[in-house]
């Protein structure tokens, strides 16, 4: 158990979640799909704005570590917003609403939302 891959005996009695492998429960929110797409995420983003800004800053720092000139972030901030209007409805409007509610630049919210496809790079 103390050498990689640290395989341990099959755990038992871990539920209900407790102890060092349980970091916390997850808060419930409701999203009303009858609202305009740009309004749907506002309550969540208002509540999680600080954490989202912290994540985006961490990604920025990583990007700057890879490309110190800042050109990568420029590309994200200047060019990615152009892609948002090519995204299908309602995702394009929801993403714009999240950028407005969080204050995070639109290009960076777009990057967050297409990260799965980008990550393969």
């Amino acid at each position, binding site marked *: 158990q103390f050498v990689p891959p640290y395989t341990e005996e*099959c755990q*038992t009695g871990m539920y209900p979640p407790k102890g*060092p492998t*349980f970091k916390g429960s*997850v808060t419930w929110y409701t999203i009303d799909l009858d609202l305009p797409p740009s309004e749907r995420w506002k309550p969540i983003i208002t509540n999680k704005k600080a954490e989202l800004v912290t994540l985006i800053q961490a990604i920025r720092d990583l990007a700057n570590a890879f490309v110190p000139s800042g050109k990568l972030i420029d590309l994200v901030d200047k060019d990615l917003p152009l892609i948002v209007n090519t995204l299908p409805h309602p*995702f394009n409007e929801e993403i714009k609403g999240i950028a407005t509610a969080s204050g995070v630049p639109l290009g960076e919210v777009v990057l967050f939302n297409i990260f799965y496809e980008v990550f393969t*790079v």
Partner: protein
Amino acid sequence: CTSLVAEDSNGNLIHGRNMDFGLFMGWDMKNRSWLITEKLKPLVVNIDFQRGNKTVFKSTNFAGYVGMLTGIKPHAFTLTMNERFSLDGGYIGIVEWILGHRDGMWMSFLTRSVLENATSYEEAKSLLAQTKLLAPAYFILGGNQTGQGCVITRSRVLSLDIWEIELKLGRWYVLETNYDHWKEPLFLDNRRTPAMKCMNQTMQANISLKTVYDVLSTKPVLNKLTTYTTLMDVNKGILESYIRDCPNPCMPW
């Protein structure tokens, strides 16, 4: 990621998943953790999507991410997705998209529209198997009847394989990490064997949300990339998620 769909002795289907993300995205030497993984944990939220004040589907998200990685359509089906690595990957899909070829779908937008609009396991399976994607993926889908559990292995264009629960063959669960189930996983990242060992040790007679949580809490199925664990029971309409930690010693992936 690790996702599984299991059928208990009464024919109930249980879906569990560990959401692992942030590989090679900033290793924090002091805390021996991944930077982005730790920043994602406070963003984990459960969402009840409603129309006309009625639940359409429920999900676990990272706040600000409009697509779906984990969700349940109560009393109909459950869905998770795991990353699939391929040279013919998402970056090719993005270039095609920029060049104006827009007949493919962004992966998490597909899962979102399936959870929002599909009404049955079969319809969901068909959409997930046949819709062209920008990036390869694994879709792990559970239904509400005996035998309804599958792993769909997708390239960007094709559905390479649909691996289903087959009780007659003794396959009472399907389990997916990040490697095609007909191939050996990367020897440096074999979470499949420990996970299946624990599932087999639990046995079908004892499978429940509790014991699935135990399996997903066993290292290296639980690792430094694990942000949350979700447990879903389709017939009870239950989705519950827990933010995880992996105390040292623990595998970075």
